């Protein structure tokens, strides 16, 4: 086995290790945690799906998108349209076309279609947005997010407007979340190792040199944008079926902020950074939410004011950017040493 082959094989251990880490997380909480921790585990795994999807674009291209919460919004509503009982839909969403109003799908094909529709929307929006250079594209993606939010909040007969759509089947357990998160991690790793992923990272490192080497920046960005929107769409559908209630404002700035915070804290440069960021921030959020509800320390009742969760996470994000700009994992991946993978006989130098 050559050194190159050994390294290539070793890089394949990253998704395996990450999935093992998440499985251990679910098993540990299943064994020792209470009901509310079980809910937190499911929510964390949904976020892994969302953030890994987000990373496929942002991590490989180096372009921050503020529009990915919009794909989650599209996904959540598509799944709601497909799975809600027809009687419910005629009541809440009278403007749906007949064939959608009559549909009553199983949740799995609904989640897949949610992802596909989000990906199609991304293909259309990306075709316009990604022609712009990095920072301008970020701003245009922000405009796209606001556009989707405006449409969803006002198109009342079809989306229910600002009032919530209720009654989604709540089927998302930690194991369902783990399944989708594992799938997202696998696809992200495969894309990252593909020729397109490599070309995209080349444009991230040096745009001019990459284009001088004949790399079509626009094409690879659009491909990554579409794949990444698929998982954000699925993640949005899972979020809807986890809480059971969806609302356009649930997929707006606060979700964008949370996804960005997770990516920045973990480190945008690697897939492992995205996953570790979700775990760390989710655990911190869980702790802060409990503190906001109030804890009893000895004789004194102690509670943080509402809103301090966002303040502390925002401050943590700024501190990470100042003192550890590449995030906790600093662009490295969890990986088995190449020597182990290649076997002892032919240890590469």
């Amino acid at each position: 086995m050559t050194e190159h082959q050994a390294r290539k094989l070793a890089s394949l251990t990253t998704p395996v290790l990450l999935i093992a880490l998440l499985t251990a997380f679910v098993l540990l909480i299943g064994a020792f945690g209470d009901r509310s921790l079980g809910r937190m585990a499911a929510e964390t795994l949904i976020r892994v799906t969302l953030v890994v999807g987000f990373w496929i674009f942002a991590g490989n291209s180096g372009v921050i998108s503020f529009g990915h919460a919009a794909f989650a919004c599209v996904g959540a509503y598509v799944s709601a349209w497909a799975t809600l009982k027809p009687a419910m839909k005629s009541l809440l969403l009278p403007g749906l076309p007949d064939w959608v109003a009559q549909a009553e799908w199983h949740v799995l094909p609904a989640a897949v279609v949610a992802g596909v529709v989000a990906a199609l929307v991304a293909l259309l929006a990306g075709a316009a947005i990604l022609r712009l250079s990095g920072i301008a594209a970020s701003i245009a993606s922000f405009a796209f997010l606001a556009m989707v939010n405006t449409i969803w909040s006002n198109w009342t007969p079809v989306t229910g407007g600002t009032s919530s759509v209720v009654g989604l089947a709540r089927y998302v357990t930690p194991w369902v979340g783990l399944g989708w998160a594992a799938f997202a991690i696998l696809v992200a790793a495969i894309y990252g190792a593909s020729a397109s992923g490599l070309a995209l990272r080349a444009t991230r490192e040096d745009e001019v040199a990459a284009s001088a080497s004949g790399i079509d920046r626009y094409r690879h960005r659009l491909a990554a944008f579409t794949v990444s929107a698929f998982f954000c769409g699925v993640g949005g559908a899972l979020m809807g079926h986890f809480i059971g209630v969806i609302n356009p404002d649930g997929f707006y700035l606060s979700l964008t902020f949370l996804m960005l915070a997770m990516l920045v804290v973990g480190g945008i440069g690697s897939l492992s950074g995205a996953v570790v960021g979700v775990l760390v921030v989710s655990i911190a959020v869980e702790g802060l939410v409990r503190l906001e509800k109030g804890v009893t320390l000895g004789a004194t009742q102690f509670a943080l004011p509402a809103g301090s969760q966002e303040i502390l996470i925002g401050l943590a994000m700024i501190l990470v950017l100042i003192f550890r700009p590449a995030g906790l994992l600093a662009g490295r991946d969890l990986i088995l040493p190449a020597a182990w993978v290649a076997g002892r006989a032919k240890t590469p130098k």
Partner: protein
Amino acid sequence: MTLQLLFDALSLGGIYAIAALGIALIFGVMKLVNFAHGQFIAFAVFALIVPSTDAVAVMGLGAAPALVLVPALLAVGAGLAVASEYLVFRPLRNASPVALMVASFALGVVIQNVLLVFYGGRPKAISLWPDLGKPVQLLGAEVPMLQIIVICAVLLVLALLALMLKRSRIGLEMRAAAEDFGMARLLGVRANAVIAGAFALSGALAATVALVLVAQTGVADVRMGGQIMLIAFIATVVGGMGSLPGAVAAGFAIGAASVALQAALPIEARPFRDAFLYGLVILVLLLRPQGLFASASAKPRV
């Protein structure tokens, strides 16, 4: 009717232009897209009232006479912006534009939630200068007094700013820094002074927008800066990142497009006006991705 539309377009476009200038100034000197600008505006709005989570707002600074109120509020805006620069953006001086942008987004969330803790989440009614809402006759059109004042104030601010940038030493240094920051420093431009100056100006412009918003809507809401910040961003992109005249021109153009859409769209499509507006902007950018007035430093040099 058409004259009325013209006044609407000028006053709305003027506010957008001022907000866009606040973003473009900072982008020009340190390549920071300031996602906290909307929260600077909201902070200046809330600086007018006494902190409390009650539903009824009690005027604090807002009760002062205009001659005290306006300079004091501009100082509050400038102070907040300079403090943000010192605490958050100075340690990040050498970071990439993407890291700066993400940090400013986080800062915006922090400021918004600090306001939420001190003032509560419900929008509050406040009345600042209620007399200005009265319409006056002008060239045969009924125009609210406030609109005329806004248009005059915008023109005044733009004239003063242009004078400052063209004639004063710090203005010259700012323009040099916007052109090529590294070269400007080599030629003796004081980086800290220029950047702090740009932030102070940007904060004061945010406070101006806050005053106009409060006088027009009569509401204080923690989320109120967000929409106008988004339009301001779009104006800076359409105008060409880093170009100050471009930002102003695009701000006015977006205000005009917004008023025109409001008048031309059928009633049932009006709630979607902003969606049409953003779609229109994306179309414009497809035709001119570099913006209307691309600055020379916008392209990477090898």
